C-alpha cells in the first residue's frame, strides 16, 4: 500500500476501515516534524488569540474604528517599542500558523504529490516575502524621515 501523504497511517480496524473519532478534530501526529507543527499550531494559536483578536478589536472598535487610522496614527503607535514587538510577533506567528494551515489543507485536498509541492511552494515563497517585507518596515520605520508629520 502506498500513501500519498507523509502523515502517519491511522489505526486500522478489523474491517479495514480507518478508526477515527469524528467528534474531535485532526488526529495528533505520532512524532517528528508533524508533531512539532501540531504543537506549534496550538501554542501559537493561544498567543494569536491575544495578538490577532486583540489587534482587530483595537483597530476596529474604539473611537470610530479604522477611520481614525492614518500615517500619524501608525507613527505615534510605533513610537512605543511595545507595539512594534506586538506587531512583529503577530506578523511572524500568524504567517507560520496560516501557511502551515494552508499546508494542512493541501494535504487533505491535493492528492498528487507534485501538484501539492508546487502549491505549497507558492505559499512558502509568498509567506517568506511577506515576512521579510513586514519585518523590514516594522524595524526600520523612522518618522523623522518626514519632518513636520506626526
Amino acid at each position: 500500500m502506498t500513501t500519498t501523504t507523509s502523515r502517519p497511517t491511522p489505526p486500522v480496524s478489523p474491517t479495514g476501515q480507518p478508526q477515527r473519532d469524528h467528534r474531535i478534530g485532526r488526529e495528533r501526529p505520532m512524532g517528528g516534524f508533524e508533531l512539532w507543527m501540531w504543537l506549534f499550531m496550538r501554542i501559537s494559536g493561544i498567543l494569536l488569540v491575544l495578538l490577532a483578536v486583540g489587534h482587530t478589536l483595537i483597530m476596529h472598535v474604539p473611537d470610530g474604528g479604522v477611520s481614525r487610522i492614518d500615517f500619524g496614527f501608525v507613527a505615534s503607535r510605533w513610537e512605543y517599542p511595545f507595539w512594534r514587538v506586538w506587531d512583529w510577533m503577530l506578523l511572524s506567528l500568524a504567517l507560520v500558523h496560516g501557511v502551515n494551515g494552508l499546508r494542512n489543507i493541501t494535504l487533505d485536498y491535493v492528492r498528487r504529490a507534485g501538484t501539492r509541492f508546487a502549491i505549497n511552494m507558492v505559499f512558502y515563497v509568498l509567506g517568506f516575502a511577506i515576512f521579510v517585507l513586514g519585518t523590514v518596515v516594522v524595524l526600520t520605520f523612522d518618522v523623522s524621515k518626514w519632518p513636520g508629520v506626526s
Partner: protein
Amino acid sequence: MAIRARKSKDDYGSIYKGHEGQWSWMLHRITGVAVIFFLFAHVVDTSLVGWGPEAYNRVTAAYENVVIRLLELGLVVAVLYHGINGLKITLIDFFPSLVSRIRSVSLVFTSVFLVATIWVAIVMLQQVWDLYQLEEVVVGG
C-alpha cells in the same frame, strides 16, 4: 464492507460522515483561509507607511467606503470565530476527557462567540451607518 452496507445514510449525520463538529471544522477552515489571504494583502498595504504619509494615507482613504467596511466586519467576525473555536480545539486536545462533554463545551464556546459577534456587529454597523451618512452629505453637497 459488510458493516458499511448495514448502515443507513442517517448514521452518518446530515452530510457525509459528520456530526455537529463538522460545521465548526468547516467554518474553522473557511475563516482560517480567509484570514491568511487577508493577512498577505494587509502586510503589503501597511508596509506603505515605510514610503511616507502620502502613499499610506492614499491607501487608507481607499478603505473609507461602506462596502469595504462591511467586508471588514466579516473579517473581524472571521478572526473571532477562528480564535474562539481554536481555543476549543486546543482545550479538547490537551484535555481529551472533555470529549465526553463535547456538547456542553461547544455550547460555551459558541455562546462566547455569539456574544462577541453581536457586540462587535453593533459597534461596527454604527460606524458604517455614520460613514454612510457622511458619504451622502459629500455626494449631496
